[in-house]
């Protein structure tokens, strides 16, 4: 019976069984819903030599989230927990970069130190934050949520310390490039940053066995150890990567506002990153993961935000509507709902054959 249906609806069935099917459907649904009120949602125009349009805005604004989602996916898969400190680590990285560039002043119009130095220092500090998280989780076996709670609470304080409690401004064009446009290029620069991170992550997972190791450790770390994997090291590595990527996201976010606002850079972004991982169809309990799913999840979240703005929802009411949509998407992807939907489809196709069978018996 299953063979015959497989033959008639082969491609469709295969499509719906793909792992990324639901995340993609959710993203498309969110995007298409705009056609009702904002028919020009998909229109892309060139103004002043750069690309404009809602869709460009979605891709651009999602960049930091995409970068965070990559790290969050690996952390989740390996340790079965999440790194909730990434938003705070972004603020720390931004503070370090701005403070070095301003030379300790509150505001500057020229670089006090080389740009490269600031970037490298910011990334090193963020990576060290990742090392701390990794040490607490992997070596000391502290629950990820508890371990990363430390930097979640302390991180913004550290950023304040670095900037002496001020908002440090770097009013230099070169600093704003990463958050705006490369000269002469119409595509927003954050898109390239996100793209670079995704490509590098993809190449690393393809060219090394890190992905397989992470899945092994996430599924059964005892068995992983007995086949010669160093579970501790692998978990540690994922937190280090996550910290580093939070640093990259922090630099992009800080460049957008050419300042280090310790209280607002990356605020609540850790929750969006976790949500992106979940929306992508990944289990938050660890194990098998799909990076592409998380990335799609990240764009879905940003698409949702932009859509709600396009519907003229005011920003203070935004979380309410966002929550409603997220709940719908999550229910849609839940195993119970999927089983029910599958049963519904099956019943519809099975009814005639069952009736025929019943007739034959009697």
């Amino acid at each position, binding site marked *: 019976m299953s063979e015959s249906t497989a033959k008639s609806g082969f491609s469709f069935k295969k499509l719906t069984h793909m792992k990324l099917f639901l995340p993609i459907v959710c993203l498309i649904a969110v995007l298409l819903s705009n056609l009702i009120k904002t028919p020009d949602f998909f229109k892309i125009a060139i103004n002043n030599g750069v690309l404009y349009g809602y869709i460009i805005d979605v891709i651009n604004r999602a960049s930091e989230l995409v970068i965070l989602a990559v790290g969050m996916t690996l952390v989740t898969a390996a340790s079965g927990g999440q790194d909730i400190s990434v938003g705070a680590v972004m603020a720390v990285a931004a503070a370090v970069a701005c403070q070095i560039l301003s030379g300790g002043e509150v505001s500057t119009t020229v670089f006090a130190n080389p740009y490269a130095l600031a970037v490298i220092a910011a990334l090193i500090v963020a990576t060290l934050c990742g090392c701390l998280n990794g040490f607490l989780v992997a070596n000391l076996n502290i629950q990820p949520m508890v371990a990363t709670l430390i930097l979640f609470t302390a991180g913004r304080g550290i950023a304040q310390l670095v900037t002496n409690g001020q908002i440090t401004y770097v009013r230099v064009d070169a600093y704003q490039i990463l958050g705006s446009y490369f000269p002469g290029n119409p595509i927003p620069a954050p898109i390239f940053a996100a793209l670079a991170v995704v490509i590098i992550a993809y190449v690393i997972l393809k060219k090394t066995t890190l992905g397989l190791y992470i899945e092994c450790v996430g599924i*059964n770390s005892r068995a992983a150890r007995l086949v*010669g994997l160093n579970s501790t090291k692998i978990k540690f590595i994922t937190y280090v990567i996550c910290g580093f990527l939070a640093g990259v996201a922090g630099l992009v976010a800080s460049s957008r506002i050419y300042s280090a606002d310790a209280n607002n850079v990356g605020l609540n972004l850790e929750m969006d990153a976790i949500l992106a991982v979940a929306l992508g169809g990944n289990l938050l309990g660890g194990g098998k993961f799909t990076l592409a799913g998380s990335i799609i999840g990240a764009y879905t979240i940003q698409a949702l935000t932009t859509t709600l703005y396009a519907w003229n929802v005011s920003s203070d009411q935004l979380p309410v509507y966002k929550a409603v949509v997220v709940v719908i998407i999550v229910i849609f992807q839940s195993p119970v709902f999927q089983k029910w939907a599958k049963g519904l489809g099956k019943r519809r196709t099975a009814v005639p054959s069952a009736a025929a069978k019943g007739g034959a018996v009697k």
Partner: protein
Amino acid sequence: MEQEVVLTMRGTDKIFPGVKALQNVDFTLRKGEIHALMGENGAGKSTLIKVLTGVYEADGGEIRVAGTDRPVVNKSPQEAQNLGISTVYQEVNLCTNITVAENLFIGHEPRKAGFIDWKTMNTKAGELLRSLDIKAEATQKLGDCSLAIQQMIAIARAVNMKCRVLILDEPTSSLDDDEVEKLFVLMQKLKGEGVGIVFVTHFLEQVYRVCDRITVLRNGTLVGEYKVSELPRLQLVAKMMGKNFDDLADIKGAHTKGADLKDAPVIDAEGLSHTGTIKPFNFQVRRGEVVGLTGLLGSGRSELVRSIYGADRADKGKLKVNGKEVRINKPLDAMMQGMAYLPEDRKMDGIIADLSVRENIIIALQAKRGMFKPMSRKEAEEAADKFIDLLQIKTASRETPIKSLSGGNQQKVIIARWLLTNPDYLILDEPTRGIDIGTKTEIQKLVLDLADQDKAVTFISSEIEEMLRTCSRMAVLRDGQKVGEISGSEMTQEGIMKAIAGAGKEETGNV
């Protein structure tokens, strides 16, 4: 003189993606009988039970229960329970941290004005336990009872829910002989009260001890239903395997090569120990030799090999591999020295459940090669296909998650994982536990073949017969200490028992 039928299943079908798990299977259970459900791993026993109890939905067929004049469809174990069908699984599904009485009444506690009536509950529980001759106190914590008593309390709970059909899924696999005996007494008692019992087990002996009828399944189809008195053991095995079977004849006969005494031993442990689990021991294994480790459960058999393999880092002593002294700090070090370790607990320490058969096979070799030298997809697929073919692993494809394979096939995948690393020394800790008799023999033959190929093997099993069939020498352990070795003429059932028991020593009770 047909007894009254309490349960019939007719034409049961169950299809999983790529596999027909059950095809047109009939099953009949009568009042007051113990009915064995037999078959190799993957024959469909568990699937049949899960369909019956509502864990799976059948794709075809009908179930009828006495007293209901229409087919029933169980959508959940709860519904099945309401119809009087209860199941007790291999792993006891009760809560060890609450009392026996609470476990018996959880979900339907006697109440007074909305609050739990503890006094009535404890009295009722006490009565129930007494009526079934279970030696436990109602107010005792369940965790303080032995595994056998816990098993019986699980049964008592089922009985208390007025069950007419009681399904026991491998209830004896973690019990010792005494405990099994107690369980059988309880089963007989329930039988006398008219409960129909479905008994799933791998132990032929137990079937012939207590059962009245046997239903045999093979590859998801019904082979037949037989009266125990009319089906000799050999024929039962033949029916399960679907071929004439030479009664697990002396497979050792063809393998005569024996240990290679010229070279240094592959493994030479001197005073190795791990504090708290195994006291200092000397242990040698040579090429071409299968050395058994025997002793009661918890005597330190697994702990000894774990300290060699680095699963527990040895804190004292020396280990020489092929004559060279080495330091093993972690499993990878041992693997680099050519060791392989099949752990005792397949589920917890062996399989990586969500990964595919292919990934499970290549993972050890891949770990050995390191993170920056990934195997190509082609190489991995070829390796997986080779071993699926060689060990006749029954799987829908190499990309099937290992968790959907039957236990015996999972074990074969783990064996393939280690054979792929081409080890000199294999540690096999209970490789045949919970595995059907056909696969068991295959694995035993494989062990002897490996020895023939000049590999050194350490074999651990609780089944003495199996040890006798495969090992050329045995080390005996007792209470975390290696107490001796036996070989040659001492290698008989009796000799081993004596060695395990020790001279005139009282048995220390708890395992």
